[in-house]
């Protein structure tokens, strides 16, 4: 087929799809794919709550049972059918699967992805295949820094927020810290997290020194005996870690009996997921984040949406929702709002372009916080962030947090058009704390 003939064929197809989109009849169903880790070490702590959160919100949307103002049925009236697929097996496999989702299964939208690796690898492919894709959890700032994105949205703050907020919390709570070190996984997530934290500490606590023995074990390494010894012997009083999946829990198990948590202050930027799972085995006094206002850190937030979320989740799955459950639920909710808004503007079931147009710059109240799609041309969300100290609540026999501090979005995320590293290195100009 010549290029001209192909262009012609594409033209016909486009015209056909436009004709099909024009009549304002309601479409009866929207198909989405929800990728999350369903096997591998990240399934238990991340994949399963993520899928549960998405499933619960989708079911409520289809039944029209979300709390007001989101109690209309479906995405722009269309019932949502979701396919839950496995994110494990490496980035290249995810790229291949993504093509299958779009070209073979012809889904309308893809909502999910946990690993930064998946998102960084997929970003160019999404743009190439032109399908609405909402990244739910993955944290790397590179997604929007590497190039302009039209079809990708991310409905939570990226990793910079976690680590800048962590530095703020250290400054507020432990101003006496003289030296600090870190243990992070050896890939984009761990490297970026450490870099942002280290740069933010230089700005916020210029007097504190960085250790020269920062640890970067391989992801899923499992055994941290030597690393724990090295951290114990290090003079640093503070340890930063962005461990997440099974590594986080294994590390806590191995470090607790060795007194690491009594001798040092340890920050876990993604520690929130471990709190409910480890229960009483979670040591007290850890500095805990949940990549934003989610999970255990907003357990006491009394808004109608949050109370609905916690209660419904508990009734259905028998445990309290952790961060990933909130974050996937939030991504689904954002997509619904974008569809509904686009439908209202178009006066009928919206086209993909109309949904994208209304998604840009969206501001809405989510389950546990307010979300502003304010960065990267309206594609990247801004939310506040929060840290606290773990404390076992003996009365209720459940884990809890104390000394909770919230940091507004404008304090911890770079302004639009500035990369994270540039912003922090210049001393975080324009931050409103």
């Amino acid at each position: 087929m010549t290029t001209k003939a192909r262009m012609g064929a594409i033209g016909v197809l486009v015209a056909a799809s436009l004709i099909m989109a024009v009549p304002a009849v309601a479409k009866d169903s929207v198909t989405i794919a929800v990728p999350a880790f369903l096997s591998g070490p990240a399934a238990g702590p991340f994949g399963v709550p993520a899928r549960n959160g998405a499933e619960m919100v989708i079911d409520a949307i289809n039944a029209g049972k979300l709390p007001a103002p989101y109690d209309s049925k479906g995405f722009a009236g269309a019932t949502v059918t979701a396919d839950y697929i496995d994110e494990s097996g490496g980035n290249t496999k995810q790229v291949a699967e993504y093509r299958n989702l779009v070209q073979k299964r012809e889904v309308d939208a893809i909502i999910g992805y946990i690993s930064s690796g998946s998102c960084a690898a997929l970003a160019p492919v999404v743009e190439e295949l032109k399908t609405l894709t909402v990244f739910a959890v993955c944290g790397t700032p590179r997604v929007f820094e590497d190039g302009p994105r039209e079809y990708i949205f991310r409905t939570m703050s990226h990793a910079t927020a976690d680590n800048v907020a962590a530095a703020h919390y250290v400054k507020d709570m432990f101003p006496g810290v003289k030296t600090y070190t870190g243990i992070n996984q050896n890939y984009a997530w761990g490297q970026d997290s450490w870099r942002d934290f280290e740069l933010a500490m230089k700005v916020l606590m210029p007097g504190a020194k960085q250790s020269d023995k920062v640890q970067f074990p391989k992801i899923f390494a499992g055994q941290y005996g030597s690393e724990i010894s090295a951290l114990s012997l290090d003079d640093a009083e503070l340890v930063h870690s962005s461990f997440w999946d099974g590594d986080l829990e294994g590390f806590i198990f191995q470090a607790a009996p060795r007194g690491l948590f009594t001798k040092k202050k340890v920050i876990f930027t993604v520690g929130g997921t471990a709190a409910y799972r480890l229960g009483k085995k979670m040591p007290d006094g850890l500095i805990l984040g949940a990549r934003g206002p989610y999970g255990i850190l907003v357990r006491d937030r009394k808004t109608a949406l949050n109370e609905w979320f916690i209660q419904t989740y508990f009734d259905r799955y028998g445990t309290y929702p952790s961060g990933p459950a909130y974050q996937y639920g939030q991504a689904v909710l954002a997509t619904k709002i974008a569809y509904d808004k686009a439908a209202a503007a178009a006066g009928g079931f919206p086209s993909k372009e109309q949904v994208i147009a209304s998604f840009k710059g969206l501001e809405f109240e989510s389950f546990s916080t307010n979300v502003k799609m304010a960065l990267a041309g309206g594609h990247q969300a801004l939310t506040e962030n929060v840290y606290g100290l773990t404390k076992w609540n003996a009365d209720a026999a459940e884990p809890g947090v104390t000394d909770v501090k919230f940091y507004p979005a404008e304090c911890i995320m770079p302004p639009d058009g500035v990369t994270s590293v540039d912003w922090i290195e210049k001393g975080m100009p324009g931050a409103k704390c």
Partner: protein
Amino acid sequence: METTRDWTIPGVTVGFAAVAVLGLLFLPDWLMNLTVIAFARALAVVGLMVLWRTGLVSFGHALYFGLGAYTVALLGKDDGISEVLITLPAATLVAATVGLFLGFIVRRYREIFFAMLSLAFSMVLYGILVKTEALGSTDGFNVRTPTFLGFAPEDAGTTLRAIFLVLCALCWTVAVLVHRYLQSTLGRLTTAIRDNEIRVEYLGYSVAQAIHGKYVMSAALAGLGGGILAIALGQVDPDSMVNWTVSGELVFVTILSGPGSVAAPFIGSMIYELIRTYAFEWLPHAWQLIVGVTLLSIIFFLPGGVWSLLARLRRREVE
């Protein structure tokens, strides 16, 4: 020599021409994508098949597969070279060169020791890639959209079709050349080496050199396959390109295809890719189980691979 007429070359010529034409006319994008992935892997499998005919199985060809993929990816990094006329030969050359050096070591080994030594070498590359931050560690990095003789396709569909056509042409070339090689005296030594090395040496041939040659050839083909896969997927990472499971997959497809013909790897690879895709779609929790059971069934019930099944059918027709 010619007792029965050899239909292989006309067969693959018609076959690939038909795939190319019918593919362009009828294949939906996803199936064309799947074909591209399957054929890219099949190129590596052709090399493994040549080794297997000599009685050697490498459990480490992900080394060359990954070298090819990373060569293409690295050339394109930071707005570098994306021309397939440069990147693909480079991928082949890098893999062949490394194969040439390692060949001096592995050619001394046979059977399980050969398999394990190859595996060990591939793990060294895996270890280096996983730890190298500049190459994206475990994440890997994106590969640039390719250009073809300066022609830069505007959209994804055209790129895919261009890759597809290039790949069909490459596969045809490789199939014909490897078939010719297998028919030559040097090629025919393959089976002789498997049966009796000493006898081959008494005939005045160097077994070590023959094996070395085949090893380099298989390395080059694996590099080429990996390079194409990197272009087609637009992403490389150590787990999907260099890990030992990738080598296992390549050997699996080799066994599934059977050593009967140079055409076998292309059919076997297609079947493998279809099994994998549908298993993943229908049973996301148990697709490995399905792949494992298929592999065991082939080992037990179809030792000659899919090709032997086809050959059996044809023989029945003739009778």
